[in-house]
């Protein structure tokens, strides 16, 4: 069960980080001069999304 839960969590996080990445790339393409700001915010947001997935993984580990 834990492994399935961790898998679903990874799926969600992958989706989230993928969306962030795609939007950031589109934004950089539109405004290359803002690339640095966009990149910093992209990494920050991706880290927050990943945090949610990691909580799920820890819960998965505890559920064993």
């Amino acid at each position, binding site marked *: 069960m834990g492994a399935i839960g961790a898998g679903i969590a990874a799926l969600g996080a992958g989706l989230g980080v993928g969306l962030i990445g795609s939007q950031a790339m589109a934004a950089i393409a539109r405004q290359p001069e803002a690339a640095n700001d966009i990149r910093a915010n992209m990494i920050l947001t991706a880290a927050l999304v*990943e945090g949610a997935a*990691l909580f799920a993984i820890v819960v998965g580990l505890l559920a064993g």
Partner: protein
Amino acid sequence: MVRVNRKIGFVWAIAAGLLWAASPLFAQEHGQEQNGHTTGETHETHSEGHGESDGYDAVGTVMNHIADANEFHVWYNTHIALPCFLYAPAQGWSFFSSGKFEHGHKAIDGYVLNHGRVNRVADPAFPKGEVHIEGITHQKDTVLKAGKEKVVDVYFATYEGKSWLLDKPSTLDGGFLGGGITSFYDFSITKNVFTMLLAAVLLVFLFTAVARGYRRNEGKAPSGIQSFFEPFFVFIRDEVSKPMIGEKHYERFQPYIMTLFFFILFCNLLGLVPFFPGSSNVTGNLAVTLTLAVFTFLVVSLNGNKHYWEHVFWMPGIPAWVKIILTPVEILGLFLRPFSLMIRLFANISAGHIIILSLIGLIFLFGKNGESVGGAVAGGIIGGLFTVFMNLIELLVAFLQAFIFSILTASYIGSAVEDHHHHEHEEAH
């Protein structure tokens, strides 16, 4: 820059000291519980986890390699002994080198070495002083815990034909990944503590040289090792501290952010070195990341201004019934943020180590533990190539996680010290 750098030196010294003081007691996770031996069987285990007679135990080997240890395993049967500082309320302090255990063949004052970690014989009747033990046996037991049946590992030391129950290593994590507070406390300089001290010493040496460079070349172009680190300093100042904390306050927190970044970075990079001075999983240890996260929590909470606490406890500008729902969520958020910092760093670094060790494990798995040379070669080629690939990704992750830890810390500090929250918020959009 010069002033900032001088401050950094102090902060490391303090941080490194605190980390060392705080971590050995609870710097021991996993390893003990997940040895993956076959259920129901009792058989002898060796101090390194491999060398099982019934085939290659991939999970157990990986878990033993990412766990902390009281001795440094260099190669095949070469170990570097580390000092042990052990305290048991029943018998007081014991100081000795872990080399005296002879890798699990000797018990000293009732302590034995099991899979590289110090365990204690629970029974007070066990002889004190140095005694030879026949070995350590292992058993799976089912216990009823919170209404569920759980399989746990139980270890016994065999001495003069009799089995003596072993207490698990002492950890402060309440047995989350094995261990717990048992009948003794382990303050030893373990593998992880050794590597942390090494990282601290490296940082002090390199950065005093860099600070000297800044004093010498004031107003001039950087030279030598200083020019290697200058881009990092400028990056952290201009991309992390300034935008996240704000022009007005960032200088105060710059030393802390830099300390975090470089300490985590050095530990990550040392963890990627697969041989002696490196190879320990420091930032992939829950206790180490917990200590770092607690520092961030304290820095954020102690520097929080009126606006910050107002926003936590009684968010202005929203109806009262929403406040009743929001306040518990905000209070929970206070603790969840450092908690996610802790889990993020731990999970990222541990996952990387587990993947690399699993790929190396393919050699033994395909080679059927030494029976099939062709399989081992195939496993070596596949595992080797993927390991190179994973190591390069891990190199990126080492920098990325150090950066994420410091940028998130900076953003939490930023939210705590920000003045006129609403005004600035509108400006930012």
